[in-house]
């Protein structure tokens, strides 16, 4: 990355910190925290680390008849273990510059729309009506990353739409060498996940594997594709229970943490719905989900060419942290051949 927008003075004065999580007090959590101590504390209503750290220790020492010094020692250890350190804005910026990569999607006009490609550390969303080419673009991204960059791709398929022969077709269009094609196919890992719990489990396993840095067939992973996120969340939303929303937020947290911690580019596909049968198209999953992806691309088939059954699609930028919204390009979801990028005058974004 060669951009240098923030001035050092400003970023140094920005402090970021992440809140400490609620953890239950258990014996052995830190030296000095014994089972009897825990029993006494919980009898007085102190069950979690937060309760302990935020309570007045003199008070606690009196009520639980524990030694004040012991409590202070335990608190110091717990704070060191569980709280986060504030980070300096300039350091964060440097870290971001060195760890972010921009991955080409295999389609120059889409790259232009995304400001030269998929950014790692971010969630990008592709949305569109059925048949507009979301899965095709995902396959194109997988082909380009595994063949061109020789990086691994994890494809989480929740709709059954992943067709290996189509991926093979795309690879064949890009290179003649058969060995390269087969190697590229081996770098794409496919997992079929058909409900939300399986998706969460797969992401959790990925996180475990990456954090333990297991050198297995996983290899250097750069892209995670989830096609589609609305298929697994739709059955849970609505109705009187609110757990659907909670699970959706869990999923968004997992995706964002994965992207940020391991410098991955996460791509999700989403549906579009209408408010009424004549209303305009809007992305599915509502307002809560709209904060999750940093970039949103809307795919549409061009009305005039519908009868001629073509492979042309129009992609417009609906949300982006770097580009103005409303830019439109034309894509061809045929055999990976791409048209000359034509920038249409910006229309009303979503």
């Amino acid at each position, binding site marked *: 990355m060669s951009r240098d927008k923030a001035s050092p003075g400003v970023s140094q004065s920005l402090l970021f910190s992440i809140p400490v999580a609620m953890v239950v007090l258990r014996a052995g959590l830190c030296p000095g925290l014994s089972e009897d101590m825990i029993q006494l504390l919980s009898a007085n209503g102190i069950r979690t680390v937060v309760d302990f750290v935020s309570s007045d220790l003199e008070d606690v020492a009196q009520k639980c008849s524990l030694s004040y010094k012991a409590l202070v020692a335990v608190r110091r250890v717990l704070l060191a273990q569980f709280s986060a350190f504030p980070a300096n804005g300039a350091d964060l910026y440097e870290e971001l510059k060195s760890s972010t990569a921009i991955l080409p999607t295999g389609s120059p006009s889409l790259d232009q729309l995304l400001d030269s490609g998929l950014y790692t550390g971010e969630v990008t969303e592709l949305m569109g009506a059925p048949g507009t080419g979301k899965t095709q673009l995902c396959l194109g991204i997988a082909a380009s990353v595994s063949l061109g960059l020789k990086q691994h791709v994890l494809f989480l398929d929740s709709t059954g739409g992943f067709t290996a022969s189509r991926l093979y077709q795309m690879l064949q269009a890009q290179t003649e060498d058969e060995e390269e094609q087969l190697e590229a196919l081996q770098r794409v890992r496919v997992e*079929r996940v058909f409900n939300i719990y399986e998706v969460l489990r797969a992401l959790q396993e990925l996180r475990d594997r990456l954090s333990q840095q297991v050198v297995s067939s996983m290899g250097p992973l750069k892209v995670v594709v989830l096609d589609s996120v609305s298929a697994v969340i739709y059955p849970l939303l609505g109705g009187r229970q609110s757990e659907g929303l909670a699970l959706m937020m869990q999923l968004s947290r997992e995706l964002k943490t994965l992207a940020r911690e391991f410098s991955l580019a996460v791509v999700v596909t989403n549906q579009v719905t209408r408010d009424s049968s004549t209303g305009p198209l809007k992305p599915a999953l509502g307002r809560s989900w709209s904060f999750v992806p940093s970039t949103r691309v809307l795919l549409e088939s061009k009305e005039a060419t519908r009868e001629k059954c073509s492979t042309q699609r129009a992609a417009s930028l609906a949300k982006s942290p770097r580009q103005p919204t409303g830019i439109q390009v034309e894509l061809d979801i045929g055999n990976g051949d791409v048209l000359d990028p034509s920038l249409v005058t910006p229309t009303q974004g979503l």
Partner: protein
Amino acid sequence: MQREVGTLPLAPVLRARLAAAGFQTAQELLDTGPCGLSKEIGISREEALEALQVVRQECHGHARTAEGSSSTRKCTALELLEEEQSQGFIITFCSALDNILGGGVQLTKITEICGAPGVGKTQLCMQLAVDVQIPECFGGVAGEAVFIDTEGSFMVDRVVDIAAACVQHCHLIAEAQQEEDHQKALETFSLENILSHIYYFRCRDYTELLAQVYLLPEFLSEHSKVRLVVIDGIAFPFRHDFEDLSLRTRLLNGLAQQLIIIANDHRAAVVLTNQMTTRIGQSQSTLVPALGESWGHAATIRLIFHWDNSQRLATLYKSPSQKESTIAYHITSHGFRDVQPPAVTPSTEGTELNPRKRPRTEEEKQQ
């Protein structure tokens, strides 16, 4: 196991209580044990034991699948490619339609057929229920069929006609080719056998349909040769008397996910038929498939049947690997067929059979 409590498939009430008590990861739950758990959150010992069992299964389930499970949920694209290339298709006896589908109706995928009334959706379903049983030596997948009927449009007499034509067709091929395995296969490929391997279910409203689909995995594990599940009329039970549209969307999406799981785990093709509805635009109205926008994402492959004067046309609207195209088809007394006989190619003398050829061409060739 650093699995967060919020991501485990427990009841929402239980999850809320665990979060309030301060449990964060699955490991903490397992460490606490059932007695501690029941005391902390105020549930009975049995409930705590059940919950812990679910947690244990979730966390260690992945260790089992890593060793290689029978359901290939995790694999590389190369392995998938080999699997796909060795997979058969269910032919439709209309070679033009088979061509645009890439060989026929694909296994492990959901195909949706939309069309106005009378255009031939049920005819194709009945044809497929017969075609799935064609023995492998004739180019079929040698499977059985499950037919779930919601509209009551399944006519056994028609299936008899279609099956008889199919059997006759195979006999002609066997006579022309004169190979041993053909004769053996023909002994089991008879009219009674075909009809006895179509499992018919009649569902009268959406509750029965949902129940049937959710009970289908059990049925399929008992009848492991089933390679086709047809739901004729998925729109019918959902279009009448449904006041709560958001409930309908939720039920349909849940149904779609369940069907994908069935298609994937049992290597079966799922075929659904849908009705058409009118969408009134600004200046004109268009016919679109029913059940709304979100249902359009359920099927992987979508075919739309429509009329052009008196010619029936089929358009491939959505497919992951084939281009959009339109072809014409015909419905004869023998079933679903091409409009004209396909060109006679000398390559049929070769090892690979072409059961898509109509009986008449075979007879002509023999003369």
